[in-house]
């Protein structure tokens, strides 16, 4: 009994902070999404009007589409690359510890700080890549222009993520017992067959979790885009959570946008629902896939 009181005392700081700064804001949003509220003056109850507006908001649905493109592009680049690196670096190879450290290095830096560096690397007018291309006589590419901005943003996101997923794959690979591979090599299996028929299926549950993590992080990411392009040009790189951020905290450079808290809460709720729905669908599909093995 005394021990129970001690336990409450020890968990109290954690519970208190989680409830006030983690749970309360969610209920706050659940309330304001039914209100018309611009951040000052009186909040006015308007029922489901905000949600009707979300349905009509072409800019929001464009940002949802951009989020899917961004997430898809990032996954297609990141996952195969990190799996290949993990498989190679899981074998006895001279210098593999050093290579792992190098590939993991980008993940320790701030995404926003690196975005500033990437701006200097990629900007169309005097960026480092374009300087190099011009010197080679290849002409320059408008990396941050309407046509290629999304691709550039995806490349940068992949740069920051590959090392992380490589490490997670490595942890999964280390759990596959060696004798499976030994038996396979006795049967004369080549490296490609080994990857496809042994490593991938045995990695199943770990893979399922890693892909899930990759999907949810990509759907929610916006920090680096905010610094690099602010969603531009012409909203080409505007992702869901960046659009949401701007409804609460209009950017300095964008004087046209205004704070809209009631509507923002409704957009936040819808976005969370979209992330939840995709996670759920992925979970169902991947479960079916991993059951077939």
């Amino acid at each position: 009994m005394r021990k129970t009181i001690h336990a409450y005392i020890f968990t109290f700081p954690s519970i208190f902070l989680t409830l006030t700064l983690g749970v309360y804001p969610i209920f706050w949003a659940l309330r304001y999404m039914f209100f018309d509220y611009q951040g000052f003056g009186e909040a006015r109850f308007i029922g489901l009007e905000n949600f009707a507006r979300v349905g009509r908001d072409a800019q929001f649905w464009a940002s949802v589409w951009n989020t899917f493109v961004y997430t898809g592009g990032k996954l297609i680049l990141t996952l195969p690359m990190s799996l290949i690196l993990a498989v190679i670096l899981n074998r006895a190879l001279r210098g593999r510890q050093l290579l792992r450290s190098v590939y993991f290095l980008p993940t320790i830096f701030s995404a926003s700080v690196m975005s500033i560096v990437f701006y200097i690397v990629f900007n169309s007018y005097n960026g480092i890549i374009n300087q190099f291309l011009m010197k080679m006589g290849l002409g320059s590419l408008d990396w941050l222009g309407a046509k290629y901005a999304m691709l550039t943003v995806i490349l940068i996101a992949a740069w920051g993520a590959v090392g992380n997923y490589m490490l997670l794959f490595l942890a999964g690979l280390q759990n596959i017992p060696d004798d499976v591979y030994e038996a396979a090599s006795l049967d004369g299996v080549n490296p490609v067959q080994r990857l496809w028929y042994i490593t991938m299926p045995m990695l199943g549950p770990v893979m399922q979790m890693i892909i899930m993590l990759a999907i949810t992080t990509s759907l929610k990411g916006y920090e680096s885009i905010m610094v690099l392009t602010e969603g531009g040009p012409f909203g080409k790189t505007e992702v869901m959570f960046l659009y949401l951020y701007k409804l609460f905290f209009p950017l300095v450079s964008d004087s046209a946008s205004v704070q809209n808290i009631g509507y923002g809460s409704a957009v936040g709720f819808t976005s969370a629902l979209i992330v939840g729905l995709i996670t759920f669908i992925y979970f169902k599909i991947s479960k079916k896939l991993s059951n077939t093995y």
Partner: protein
Amino acid sequence: MLGSRVLSRSVLWAFLLITAFLMLFPILIAVLGSFKTNLEVTTGATLLPSSWQFQNYAHAWTKANFAQFTWNSIFTSVFVTLGTLLITAMAAYAVDRVDFKGKRFYIVLQSMTLFISIGAVVLKPQFDLMVALNLQTTLWGVIIILISAHATAFFMMIGFFKGIPRELDEAALIDGCNFYSIFWRIILPLLKPALGVVALFTFRGAWNEYILPLVFSMSRPDLQTLPVGLANLRYGFGAASENQYLLAGACISILPMLIVYILANRSFMQVNVGAVKG
């Protein structure tokens, strides 16, 4: 047979080395560019600076206010790390060692905060709460909010508790220790490796945090941390921006992380895997 082997080895190494170069390239650009003149950054197209401009750092440090940003970053990250360590170690100790009513609820609550995310929406009520407590004029508002997001650290911590046998607690109890002195004298010293890993994870998160300090420094420029101060500089310089100072600033922000990484890269990698397994 031997020929194809040599060939596949070379292809493998070419792939590994090109990938390594791509990973290091932006960091190389930042470090070398921070010693160049602006003209050289924007038109040079050479890797090494022709003459090393060490005064870029002096300029960034004093004129561009990086001394202030650095101090704010250190202050925030240190207190967020200390606070998170203390709170999660205490909570994990109680959850692992005592069967109290509401324990399941507590664990479900923590894991829910990991999965439910409504993005920037929460920043507004969080900020308003800090205004109500009059903490929006200092970095303590940022620090407290960052400490409140400690679910991952908690799950990492509790993973390590499984390695500390309960027999130790019981023996200490017989020797006259109580719940609190067991925590201070037995658990915490044994928890050192865990504290190190969780500290690394938390410090990295706080040091690299951008959005939260950005929101708090909108009306208080003196609260800008390194990522915020650096990102805001991109407005100040305009089209013909002074890239060399931006790069020097980026290096000031990168360097401490890089040093920690070189000294403890194995623990660093353990952090990431642990954070997910947690």
